[in-house]
């Protein structure tokens, strides 16, 4: 088994990856591909970077907690 104590960590990471696959794909992506801005930043651009940061944050939380 890869790193025994990471069984549940592994499942969480897979869940995060699946979440990412949904967030960065059609059709969710198309919901944000429209004119508009948040704090002056185009909606799509803002969405992608927020979702990206969210995924990184989740991954960091899950792996750091496992230690």
């Amino acid at each position: 088994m890869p790193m025994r104590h990471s069984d549940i960590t592994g499942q969480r990471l897979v869940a995060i990856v699946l979440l990412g696959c949904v967030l960065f794909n059609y059709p969710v992506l198309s919901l944000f591909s429209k004119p508009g801005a948040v704090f002056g930043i185009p909606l799509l651009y803002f969405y992608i970077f927020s979702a990206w940061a969210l995924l990184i944050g989740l991954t960091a939380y899950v792996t750091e907690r496992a230690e």
Partner: protein
Amino acid sequence: MLQGWVIVAVSFAYLGVLFAIAYYGDKRADAGHSIIANPAIYALSLAVYCTTWTFYGSVGRAASNGVGFLPIYLGPTLVAGLWLFVLLKIIRISKAHRITSIADFVASRYGKSQFLGGLVTVIAVIGVVPYISLQLKAVSNSFTILTHYPDIVMPAKAATQALWQDSALYIAMTLAAFTVLFGTRHMDATERHEGMVAAIAFESLVKLLAFLAVGVFVTFGLFSGPADIFARAELVPKLKALMTVADTGNSYGSWWSLTILSMLSVMLLPRQFQIAVVENVNEQHLRKAVWLFPLYLLVINIFVLPIALGGMLHFPGGQVDADTFVLTLPMAQRQEALTLFVFIGGLSAATGMVIVETIALSTMICNDLVMPLALRIKALRLNERQDLSGLLLGIRRWAIVAILLLGYIYFRAAGDAYALVAIGLISFAAVAQFAPAIFGGMYWKGGTRHGAVAGLLGGFAVWAYTLLLPSFAKSGWLPSDFLREGLFGLELLRPQQLFGLAGLDEISHSLFWSMLANIGLYLGVSMTGRATAAETRQATAFVDVFRHTVGTAGGLRLWRGSAQVQDLLPLIGRFLGPVRAQEAFLSFARGRGLASVSELKADADLVQYAETLLAGAIGGASARAMVASVVQEEPLSIDEVMNILDEASQVRAYSRELELKSQELEAATAELRAANERLMELDRLKDDFMSTVTHELRTPLTSIRAFSEILLEDPKTGLPERKKFLGIIVKETERLTRLINQVLDMAKIESGNAEWHTAELNLREVIEESVAATYSLFNDRQVTLTLDLEPATPSVWADRDRLIQVMLNLLSNAVKFCDPTHGKVGVALHREPGGLRVDVCDNGGGIGAADQKIIFERFRQVGNTMTDKPQGSGLGLPISRHIVERFGGRLWVHSTPGKGATFSFTLPFRPGDSGPDTAPQ
């Protein structure tokens, strides 16, 4: 002024710094103090993924595609989440087998096949050399632009230079020299380059800072914040379109295929494999890298779109290439220092990529292409040479020079042609062809050598036909008719609409067909053929790597034959150098408890060890061939291998069962031991109890007996005296009765046989009743009693009489121990979260910290029992504590000596449905 010599001097100074870092890193590594043993450095070195294609090219892609540059970085972010499974497994396998390149990995998995190793090497070289050209082009272009400072002249318009004036040639040569110095300083059995990794990590930092510096300058210097740039871009229709995904065609399909492509490339590009797997110092670094590396990618991309839009707003004519915005925007503002910093950042991105990529490729070329051929050519008489380690280093150095020259030639030939511009993704698609053979081989034992060869050849052929050749045709090197009309004029064979598949972009199109061919052939051929013994053995060692012990290459003794140490040792010595070989064999001997190499027996383990050692230097396939040449082997048949593997898996299953059983036994033993200890403790407690009780009973008995005897023996005692004596006897008898009652009470409570009459009751009433009952006591001793009871408290579940017993005990204690002349006792009732709290405080002498625990033990009283007259039985507090705990509360004392003591207890509010009988005891 930014003159040519300034730029050159700064560049060389920068390379000097890099070399100093690498030198220091190597020195520290030799001394055993690794400076790269740090997850952050590992993550930074992984950022070698970001080349000039990122540094300059992302802005260019963003200028034409909007967010279309992002999938290249989102893919790695997604796949990083799986690294703790996939990459960890690759690292584990590679460490166990001393795998030093991706070609070696594939070759080793499929029965140490030299042909496969060579095939992977050829694909990697063809796929990646143009990518190296791209780096040379980027550095050369940025240098050319910089030399025209302060004018902004595009390199395409710069005069075509003669060969000896071409900066790219000098760049290529410098980088070759630099890489040789970095990467081939000595022959390492594990092919690790700690100094190089340190330098690469530093370069990643420099390119990140440089890019952020331009980003901040453009966003906040040239414009007033990102909102300003986006607001202005909104007004230009062409730029406005960049802010959404294009509606035309299959944009989301391209988006997703780029994501998948980058997911594969970030693990399969030779440089990524080198850094992530071969140079990995500690598996644990992966844990942090899985989020640090994506974080790096996010940060370096934040300013891409602002710079792209800012550049297009600033140079509206389109005369400045968007690929150069990173450099030309600070130039246009005459920011010399920033411009130079950006140039160094680009140089970092290029040199980092080129160094690692060429080192990785040179290892592959040496181990999987040149050595297998050289060892076969008898005319070279390599078998007679005593020390080949120098030859190996030489081959690698020449391979490095050759790769960079190839890169330069391609750059020179391609110039600004399409074939160079599009190469980034074409390269990605080439290395993606390794995916089925590698991931299939790691998780599926059924994959065979023939399957892997067929898959790789098929996938590579389709890739070349649908991506590489069209890129040549678009550059004008091939007649472009075949693009429109198809091979042999067959429309179905049009390379970019193969079999009529239209509507996909060229990368998605090629990825689909090449992966279809690759995976289809890999699975199909694997399943129709049969694996050889060597393949089966390697398949098991790879797929089950986590189950075997690391270090013995699978822990399976799948070798039979006879060998001599005096044959093996010189063989290893020829490739690693005699001294290193001797050291390695000695450490193996020591590991087995032998004093010297001469005591070693050449058994299966030693042969395995020698082969693994050799694999680190010349690759698994060649190592197998070399070892086979000096030992007599009896080939194992496939059935024998299968039997051994079956046996091994059975043994594994048994041993796992045994392990489980023994764990259960251990747990049971521990429980028994604990129970036994508890019993012995109880026994001891019982003895203590008996002796204390008898001691306590004897005191009143003695005095009763003494006074009775006086009365009996001296009939002349006067009436007043008789009365006094009888009074004492009565008092002592009462005391005796009380004591016995309490002992019985205690015994009942402890054994759980006590009767409890639990009901809902108001604690306030209980306290008032207890106070009334002790009123005379307070009066006798002239102790002031103050009450502070919260009105209308919720009810609790408890036994009324028992609670009164507790209160009486606390109150009588308080009276007994409070100040003898100005005694004061306070009783308080308060509400707390979850329950009620009662405090009984006095103003007596208090209780020392050491005694605060003791008083809750049976028969323990504060003070010296031998000299002081006992003031109680020593059972009141233990009983009270039992009672309170029985109802889920807690009883404790808080006291500072000299300032009185406060006894407090809590009782929870009426518990929900569980009822008081199940209240914790």
